[in-house]
């Protein structure tokens, strides 16, 4: 058995979390609350650290007064908690959403639209390329909802639906595989680090 207190705490909390598989109990609830509390506490600590290192110190020690603008905007976000000041939170929120959208869209058009379309424009010289091109066209035809499909188009869109199902199946299969990986990691900690059954 491990002599490390941290490993013991981790193992006991893991078992308490897994005890939900039997039924809901006070140990599981305690771990649940602890998890949420730790997450919130960590978030607050990170936020405080960010304010100190990126705003407070540069303003007070380096005289970077222009950083007061984002600080004031950050404070304005809390205006939503006071009814008479609720309107003040709209400005920083609009700024965050606006800049966020602009920054994301700038790269999205080229990287997720143009380049992904380019990637499907390939010579039909191999089975793999053929599957990608035909598969893309079939799946796109499935999403034609604005006009009635004739028999030929219906057949193509049915193939597209099957391709979508295969894709979702692969994603689900990977999801299951991921959960198994996580379980294996937990069991490795329990049987390896805690009770030393696995070397």
């Amino acid at each position: 058995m491990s002599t490390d207190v941290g490993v013991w705490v981790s193992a006991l909390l893991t078992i308490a979390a897994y005890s939900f598989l039997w039924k809901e109990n006070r140990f599981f609830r305690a771990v649940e609350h602890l998890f949420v509390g730790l997450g919130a506490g960590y978030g607050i600590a990170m936020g405080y650290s960010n304010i100190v290192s990126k705003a407070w110190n540069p303003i007070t020690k380096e005289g970077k007064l222009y950083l007061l603008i984002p600080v004031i905007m950050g404070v304005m976000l809390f205006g939503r908690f006071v009814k008479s000041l609720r309107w003040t939170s709209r400005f920083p929120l609009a700024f965050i959403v606006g800049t966020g959208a602009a920054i994301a869209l700038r790269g999205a058009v080229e990287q997720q639209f143009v380049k992904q379309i380019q990637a499907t424009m390939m010579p039909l010289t191999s089975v793999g390329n053929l599957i990608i091109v035909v598969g893309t066209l079939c799946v796109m035809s499935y999403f034609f909802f604005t006009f009635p499909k004739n028999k030929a188009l219906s057949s193509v869109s049915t193939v597209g639906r099957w391709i979508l199902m295969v894709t979702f199946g692969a994603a689900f299969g990977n999801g299951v595989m991921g959960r198994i990986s996580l379980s294996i990691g937990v069991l490795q900690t329990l049987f390896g680090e805690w009770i030393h059954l696995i070397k």
Partner: protein
Amino acid sequence: MIADDTLNRIYGGAGKVYGEDYCHLGYLAGGETAQGAFIRDPLKACPQDFYGTPSSSLPICKGLSNGKDVQALIYFTTGYTAEWIRQAGPLGVPIIAGVITVLGPAQEAFVQSGQLKGLLVGMRGGAEYEIIMDEPGSAAAAMDAQSLGHLLFILFIIFGNASYFIQKKYGKKPVGGGAQS
């Protein structure tokens, strides 16, 4: 803190020197906006490292003015992954990703298009990396357990389907009131 422990354990253990071979610039809040700012000017986005030392004074950061100065951007994530492709892709920075298994299929499209130069997917990716590096370790060892887990799932699926069709044939309502055709 966990990142700092891990970096120092791995790089420090390999004899690498902090500041010269690696550095820890801490956590940068702000999501994609922060990622964009970082890749355009890393030292401006992170003026100090995790310990409060000015980033520009670290030898490893000398001459680092924007993302084009790095040889590769390698990220590991458990969430949405297109942010780095959107932000670093236009600069032409080679991007390599390590993602959890669930995210694997969605990333393959970026590998296919050449936007990702490499992709490490979950435990299987870890095992493949260990084998390529000729250093089989915990991921390669855990693949046996994973394969056995898959076998168990396949058996459960076969068993579940068989019991469903048997119950349907003999006119008995499936347990849990499954959908009837």
